């Protein structure tokens, strides 16, 4: 009897947490259809017009374009550097591999503001003007570990015999890479890239310190909420961002199972 009560209590808790997790997101989506300029609950009159207002807002458009460019560029650079790091760490048998993993996770384990201030002071010191390039540098730094995590997890589960077989059958290193290694890690690369893209697209803490006068979409949202301006548009824009981010996340989850899909949580595992 007590057991049954405990079970029921646990499930009640689960439902409560699910409500807590999703009700706020639902609220935002609903407010996007609120006709009134001033948000009050419950919503009285409904409209679709804020979607068209946001769509035609040149500021939102240019911020969106900048975010997109920065996220794509950061993802590409992180893809190259992150998979190189994964291959290097996976292959090498040397003292200090753990420190490399630790180093890569540092930008996500330390508060983001540290990365932001550090990069900002370095750019100031070197006399580099803040621009889209400095944004990309910042984003790449914390996106590398996402790719690294995905690729190294896959490499660990791939048996070395495949590579040995390829070599035994006379393949060159390049051929093995092209026909054996890349196909086995392809989905891990795609899913890592999608996660890195999502992470970059939504980032605001580091970006504030590495962006110049230009706004990324999160910086535009941050400014609008702060000044209390264009709030109905903010509802619409954040709804779109949420939807836009769900797509890569769901695809990434399908590709790799959800093993590495919580990148900040899934830090590099200590090498076996």
């Amino acid at each position, binding site marked *: 009897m007590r*057991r049954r009560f405990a*079970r029921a209590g646990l*499930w009640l*808790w*689960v439902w409560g*947490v699910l409500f*807590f*997790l*999703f009700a*706020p*997101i639902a*609220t*935002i989506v609903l407010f996007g259809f609120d006709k009134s300029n001033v*948000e*009050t*609950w419950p919503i009285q009159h409904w409209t679709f017009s804020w979607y068209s207002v946001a769509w035609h807002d040149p500021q939102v458009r240019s911020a969106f374009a900048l975010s997109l460019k920065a996220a794509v560029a950061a993802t590409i650079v992180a893809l*190259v*550097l*992150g998979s*190189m*790091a994964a*291959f290097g760490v996976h*292959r090498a048998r040397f003292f200090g591999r753990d420190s490399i993993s630790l*180093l890569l996770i*540092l930008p996500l*384990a*330390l*508060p*983001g*503001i*540290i990365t932001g*201030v*550090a*990069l*900002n*002071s*370095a750019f100031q*010191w070197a006399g580099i003007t803040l621009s889209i390039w400095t944004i990309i*540098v910042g984003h790449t*730094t914390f996106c590398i570990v996402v790719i690294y995590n995905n690729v190294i997890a896959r490499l660990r589960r791939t048996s070395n015999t495949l590579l040995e077989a390829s070599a035994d059958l006379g393949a060159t290193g390049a051929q093995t890479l092209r026909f054996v290694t890349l196909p086995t890690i392809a989905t891990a690369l795609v899913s890592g890239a999608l996660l890195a893209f*999502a992470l970059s697209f*939504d980032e*605001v*803490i580091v970006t*504030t*310190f590495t962006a110049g006068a230009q706004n990324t979409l*999160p910086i535009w949202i941050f400014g609008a*909420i702060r000044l209390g301006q264009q709030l109905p548009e903010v509802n619409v824009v*954040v*709804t779109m*961002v*949420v939807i836009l*981010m*769900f797509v890569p996340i769901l695809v990434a989850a399908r590709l790799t199972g*959800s093993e590495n*899909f*919580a990148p*900040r*949580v899934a*830090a590099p595992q200590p090498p076996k």
Partner: protein
Amino acid sequence: MLSPPLLWFLVIYLSSLVLMLITSLWSINGFTSQIDHHLTGQNFSQIVSGAYPSIIGRTVLLAVLVTLTDAVVAFPFAYVMARVATQSTQRILLGAVLLPLWASYLAKVYAWISILEKGGALNWTFSRLGLPDPNLGFTNGAMWIAFSYIWLPYMIVPIYGALERIPSSLLDASADLGASAWNTFRRVILPLALPGLAAGSIFTFSLTLGDYVTPLLIGGSNSTLIGNAIYENLLTGGNLPLAAALSAVPIGVMVIYLGLAKRLGAFEAL
């Protein structure tokens, strides 16, 4: 293979960190507003006086509070996910945690502003129940709720991972040896889940420690955190050396915290 990524981290990331720590020993010339490159400890003596100690205290306290809240809320949920739910339900629940984790950060902060402000859903619900308005918007309480909400999935996932890895045979053995359900929980499950809890707490603690967006948007006049002090000094006040010195505080706190977490086995659970 390793050198390009390592070079990136050494040249861009680590050297920036070191430069920031050196900058914290510089100062701003009062007349020219330029950085004076003579080493001085004045930023740090400024941090230990005035308003800063209470700001630092508030930040650490809030980070601890948010971490504890998330641990308490997450544990039963993660337990059901890992040990009670069927495999298909387990999948659905994991998805239900990961989607909000990836929902836009600003969307989540903004959602809580809409809910907690005067005309929001919380006040409406309370008045429907005949209770007085909680008026939580723009207070430290709002900050606590928003942070606990935003970081909750980061706590659930590692606890779930740790609980899922416990072999059922251990629980059977404990029961066979006559332990009550409570004793099994306290002496078998909890110790084995501890690394997961520690791993999750790294994120809830660290992310709260350095945040300035949530306090700025949803906090009140009394909600300044270390992050806000850094943000103000750097972007509004133009005092990079003081901002750098303030940034050393979360680094110091995190080094201590990571050291503790390591002793609890957090890194093996990540």
